[in-house]
C-alpha cells in the first residue's frame, strides 16, 4: 500500500524585490524591479503513513509554514510533487480540503463576529456532517477541551487559549483523515498546552487521524510524536524516530565544575587526557565538559577532576532533546555558511 502522504523534491521560491539605493533608485525599482528568489523549501522528500503523528520542526524561517501551506493546497510549489491519498492539494483543492483539518496557531478559521456555536453549525453544513456524528464530535470536544463553556460567546471575545481550543475542534468536526497543525500551542500557558496535547493524543487514538505538527515547543514533540522531521533553511536534516535522534547523537552528558582557582580549559584537558571528554574553551573558575555515557562513566570523569583540581561544586546533567535539536540547527547553519 502506498503511503498516505507522498512528498518528492518539494521546492518553493519566494520572489523578493531587490531594492536599489536612493530616491532615483526607488523610481527605477518602480519601473524595472529586480528580483531575487529566496528558496524557502528546498527539495523536501518524505512519506507519511496513515495514522502517523509526525513532528515537523526547525528554527524560525526554516520553511515549516511554507511546507504546510503547500500540503494544505494554499500555496503552489515552484517544483516538486505532492500526492495525498491520490489527490494533489493545490490542484484538487475543493475535493481535497474536504478530507483535511487545518489549524494555523496564528490565525483563526472561525467566523470572527459569530458565536462559536454558529461557526460550528456552518462548518457542519460546509462538510455535510451527519447529525449523529456532529453530536458525538461536539461531546468529545466538550469532554476533552471544555468548549461547551464558551459556545455562545462571539469568537472575538475569546481568550487565546479558548480560541485555540475552538479552532482545534473546528478543524476536527468533520473527522478529517489528515490534520495539519502549524504551531497549535503558540502562546498557550502550561495548563492549556497540556489540555491541547491530551486532546490530540485522545483524538489520535480514538479517530486514527494522521497528524503533521510544527512547533517550537519540543515538549509537544516528546509527548505526541514518535517521528520527527527536522528542517533547516528549507532542507530536511533529519527524518526518523525521536528515540533515534537521541541515540544517534549518543546520550550526551554535561558536567559543570566550579573551581576554587581560575584555570584554562587546556589545564583541564590535561587532567582528563586519557578520557573521551571535550572541554569547552573557557577561562576562569567555571568550566563545562561533555561526554557520552556509552564511552565513559560520569563517576570516572568526576574522580579524575576532583583528584587533580580544587573543586568547589559539581553538576551533572543529561543533554536534553531541545539542545540536541539546537545543535542540529546550528550545524546546519555552519554547513551553509
Amino acid at each position, binding site marked *: 500500500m502506498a*503511503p498516505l502522504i507522498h512528498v518528492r523534491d518539494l521546492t518553493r521560491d519566494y520572489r523578493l524585490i531587490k531594492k536599489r539605493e536612493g530616491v532615483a533608485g526607488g523610481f527605477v525599482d518602480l519601473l524595472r524591479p529586480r528580483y531575487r528568489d529566496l528558496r524557502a523549501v528546498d527539495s523536501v522528500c518524505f512519506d507519511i503513513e496513515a*495514522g502517523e503523528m509526525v513532528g515537523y520542526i526547525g528554527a524560525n524561517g526554516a520553511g515549516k509554514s511554507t511546507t504546510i501551506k503547500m500540503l494544505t*493546497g494554499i500555496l503552489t510549489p515552484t517544483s516538486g510533487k505532492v500526492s495525498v*491519498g491520490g489527490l494533489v492539494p493545490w490542484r484538487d483543492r475543493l*475535493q481535497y480540503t*474536504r*478530507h*483535511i483539518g487545518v489549524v494555523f496557531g*496564528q490565525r483563526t478559521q472561525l467566523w470572527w463576529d459569530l458565536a462559536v456555536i454558529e461557526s460550528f453549525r456552518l462548518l457542519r453544513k460546509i462538510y455535510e456532517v451527519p447529525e449523529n456524528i456532529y453530536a458525538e464530535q461536539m461531546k468529545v470536544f466538550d469532554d476533552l477541551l471544555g468548549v461547551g463553556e464558551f459556545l455562545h460567546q462571539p469568537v472575538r471575545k475569546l481568550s487565546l487559549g479558548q480560541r485555540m481550543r475552538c479552532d482545534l475542534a473546528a478543524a476536527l468536526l468533520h473527522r478529517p483523515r489528515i490534520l495539519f497543525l502549524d504551531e497549535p500551542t503558540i502562546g498557550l500557558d502550561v495548563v492549556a498546552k497540556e489540555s491541547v496535547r491530551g486532546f490530540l493524543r485522545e483524538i489520535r487514538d480514538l479517530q486514527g487521524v494522521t497528524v503533521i505538527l510544527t512547533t517550537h515547543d519540543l515538549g509537544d514533540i516528546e509527548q505526541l510524536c514518535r517521528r520527527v522531521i527536522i528542517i533547516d533553511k528549507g532542507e530536511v536534516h533529519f527524518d526518523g524516530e525521536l528515540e533515534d535522534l537521541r541515540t544517534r547523537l549518543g546520550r550526551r552528558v554535561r558536567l559543570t565544575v566550579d573551581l576554587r582557582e581560575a584555570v584554562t580549559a587546556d589545564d583541564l584537558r590535561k587532567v582528563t587526557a586519557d578520557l573521551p571528554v571535550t572541554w569547552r574553551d573557557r577561562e576562569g573558575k567555571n568550566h563545562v565538559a561533555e561526554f557520552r555515557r556509552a564511552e565513559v562513566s560520569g563517576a570516572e570523569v568526576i574522580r579524575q577532576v576532583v583528584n587533580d583540581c580544587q573543586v568547589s561544586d559539581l553538576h551533572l546533567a543529561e543533554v536534553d532533546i531541545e539542545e540536541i535539536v539546537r545543535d542540529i540547527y546550528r550545524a546546519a547553519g555552519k554547513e551553509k555558511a
Partner: protein
Amino acid sequence: MSEPTTEAVRADRLVPWGRSWTATLGLYASFVRLSFLKFLAYRLRYYTGVISYTIFISGHYYIYSALFRSGTPGPGGAVTIGGLTLPEMVTYVAVGWIGRSFYFNNISRQLSRMVVEGEIAMQLIKPFHLQTVMLSEAVGESCFRLMMFTLPITVVIVPLFHLLGPTDFALYPWTFLSFCLALVIYSQWNFLIGCLAFYLKNIQGVLRAQMVSMDFLTGVLIPFTLFPHWFQVVVQWLPFQGISYIPVTIFLGKRTGPELYQAIGLQFAWAIGLFILARLVFKFSVRRVIAQGG
C-alpha cells in the same frame, strides 16, 4: 459475501466526494442568513446612513432646481436638460441613490484585505468557492440594506420631493429585478477589482479610484444623457450601465416592450459573464498567490 468497497477502506486513498445541488444551495443560503444577522447585530452603526443618503439626495435636488431655473424653455414649454424634465431628473437621481443604498457592498476592499493580510489562507482550506460565499454575503448585506436604508429612505424622500412613480405598476417588479441583477454585476466587478491585490503591492489607490469612477460610469451621479456623445457610446459597451442607468431608466418608463426585455437580458448576460470571469480570474490568481506572513 461481498467485500466492502475497497475505495472506502483503503487507508492510502481519499474518498471522492461531492455536494448535491440542494446541499449547495442550503450552504450558500446559510451565508446569506449569517451575513444578514451579522449586519443586524451591528445595526447601530448604520442609523446615520439614512440621514446621509437623504442629505445627499437633497443636495442634488437643489443643484438641479437651480440649473433648471436658469435654463431656457424648449418647444414644449418646459425646461429639459439631457432630455429630462426637472421632476424626471430629480426622480432619476433619487431612485439611483435609493438603488445604490441597496446594491452597495465592499467586496473589493474585503477581498484585497484578505489577500494582503494572508487571511485568505483560512478561506482556501475550506471546501467552498470563496467567490460564491462572498456573493451570498453580499446578498445578505443587501437584504439588511433594503430594510435599514432603502425602505426608510424611500419613505422620507418620496413625499419630500414629490417623486414620480410610474403609473404602470408592472414597472415596479421589473425595477426590483433589475436592481437585483445590478447587485450581482456590482459584486462580481468588485470581486474582480479585489483580485488585483494578488498582483499589486499597494491597492488602496486603485480601490479609491474605482469607487469614484464607478459612480460616474454607472450613471448614478449624473445621467448619461448629460455626457458627450463618445462617452455615451463607450458606456454602452461596459457592464456599469447595468448597475444604475438601466434600472433607473426602467423605473422612469424610458424602456418599454422589447427594449425592456433587451435591457434586462443585457444585465443577465453581464451578471453571468462577470461571474464566470471572476471565477476564472480567482482560480488563476490563487495558483500564484503569495501567502503573506505566518
